[in-house]
């Protein structure tokens, strides 16, 4: 993963050299020698954090801060002021600075503050975001909310579930509990891309009922930012109320589904009964 990018804006070459030496082991560091150059670099590089001096030629640090906070795209970049002018701290914080560090600066304090400020900015960005698990079924990509996921398993041995529809035809034991396998490919009428032994089961839980979604692949979970979550499309067609959102992930744009909505309420209610019948001596036998 790329290192976070820190831009240091200071008119002192010595301070630039010092901060670069302190930060460069943990961060990608760029430097600017005055406010105007700093603002230009902010626009071009969009750093993850800015360290900003106050008294500088061309454009004073407070003016740089004001312009950053007023420009939509850059306003979320956290800015730490580093200055000997402690009397200006209150005004800078009021203008939106994340922190004010008084010179002389300790190397370990600077490192700790940069790390804390980046974490806080990340947490703020994540507010209102949606954590999803992207799945692959045949040629389809879709996602489910990560909060619903309990386990991801390689395909275990399953037993047939007589009486269920074609997409709900097996179950298996997980920690002593019977879990039905919901074959999303069969439900959507598409072909699996992988043989049954290479598929995966994603165990989800809704209202204390567990379901194992049979899928061809699972990508890494992702936190989708609010800007990448599109308005929910009105219920339509096959999705029948199962569509939660459409999100932009690193795997592409995909729907976020609520799988139980793809099953009828009656079917969900009767799952327990179907399993009980299946585990009776007459219904035994493994299918995979």
């Amino acid at each position, binding site marked *: 993963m790329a290192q976070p990018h820190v831009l240091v804006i200071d*008119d*002192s*070459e*010595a*301070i630039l*050299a*010092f901060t670069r*030496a*302190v930060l460069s082991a943990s961060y990608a560091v760029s430097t600017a020698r005055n406010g105007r150059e700093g603002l230009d670099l902010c626009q071009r590089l969009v750093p993850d954090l800015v360290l900003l001096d*106050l*008294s*500088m*030629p061309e454009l004073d640090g407070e003016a740089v801060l004001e312009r950053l906070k007023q420009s939509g795209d850059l306003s979320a970049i956290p800015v730490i002021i580093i*200055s*000997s*002018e*402690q*009397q*200006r701290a209150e005004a800078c914080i009021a203008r939106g600075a994340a922190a004010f560090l*008084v*010179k*002389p*600066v*300790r*190397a370990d304090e600077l490192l700790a503050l940069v790390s804390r400020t980046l974490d806080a900015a990340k947490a703020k960005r994540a507010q209102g975001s949606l954590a999803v698990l992207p799945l692959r079924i045949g040629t389809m990509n879709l996602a489910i909310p990560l909060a619903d996921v309990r386990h991801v398993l390689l395909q275990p041995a399953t037993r047939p579930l007589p009486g269920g529809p074609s997409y709900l035809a097996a179950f298996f034991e997980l920690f002593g509990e019977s879990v039905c396998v919901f074959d999303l490919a069969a439900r959507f009428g598409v072909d699996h891309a992988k043989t049954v032994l290479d598929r995966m089961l994603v165990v989800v839980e809704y209202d204390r009922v567990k379901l194992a979604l049979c899928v061809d692949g699972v990508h890494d979970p992702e936190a989708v930012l609010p800007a990448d979550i599109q308005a929910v499309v009105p219920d339509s067609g096959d999705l029948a109320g199962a569509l939660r959102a459409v999100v932009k992930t690193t795997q592409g744009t995909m729907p976020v589904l609520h799988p139980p909505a793809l099953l009828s309420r009656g079917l969900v209610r009767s799952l327990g009964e179907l399993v009980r019948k299946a585990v009776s001596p007459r219904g035994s036998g493994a299918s995979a």
Partner: protein
Amino acid sequence: MSARRILVVDDSPFTGEAVAWALRRAGFTVDVARDLWDLEKPELPTPDLVLMDVVLQEAFGDDLAMLLRGMRGFECPIVLLSSLPDQLLERRAADAELDGYISKKSGLAGIVARAREVLGGSSDDETPAAGTSGRFEVTARQRVRRVLHIAATDARWNASAIAGEAHALAGDADLAGATTLAEAARACRDVAQRLGAGGATPEIRAAVEALGREMPDARVSAGTLLVATSGPFYQDELLPELDSAGFTIVEAQSLVELRPKLHAADYDLILVDDALRTAEPTMMAEIDKASATNVAILADKPGEVAGKPAISRGGGAKRVAEEVQRLAKK
């Protein structure tokens, strides 16, 4: 065999000069660096020992030691030199993997003894006495004046700057053997550091007052000057004259140093060395932008320079001080 070379890093002109004086008397070759800028100069010779102050203006000495080792390739012993408490110094030296520490309380003799211990050399030399006492008086009085100046109004209040001045004063006073003044400065530093975030608390004000009482002639100021200059004429001749005329002097040796000081633009006069003005083409524009109207140039000839009144060095420091008094706002 050539004399062993020692680099003294200290932002206090008095400490730098006094330590260098004592070490030279003991036969060492000494270079003095007062800040990060000096340490970056390529012509800085590689020393056999570094005596590193801890609290500098822009960074801390133990952090800079890492830079000297990493970026300049200094492999010699680096010893911290400070008036911070011994326990703290010991810890910071160990954390930064340095070669120990010397408290400024050990005085100049202690510093020389430690340099000999690290570098070797005869111990028969005359033990140096604390010298340069005239310089100490001026430096110390100016530090107290600056603390009182910063603490005088809410607009200027800066606990960190008060702590910085008081800390430097404590170190200078330790070396000069001015124990009571050193203790008052230390108390002022500690309370400003501890309570500074809470603003101008009564405790800090009391500590500032107590410090002022240790140096009564610093409590009356003829005005405040921002002086952008350096060099021997200023340090050796003009500064003592301006000090004895009662001025509080805020100093800057470069435009980078001047900028943050300009912001608190309530000086009675800003005195700019013509050489510095010429070297920094944007300096006068930046001074004007800070709405500083009362500006004079320290030049070779009287008259006018860059639209500002010029005060000639040629008349000597006393005449310059008289002219400054005339021009400074009352």
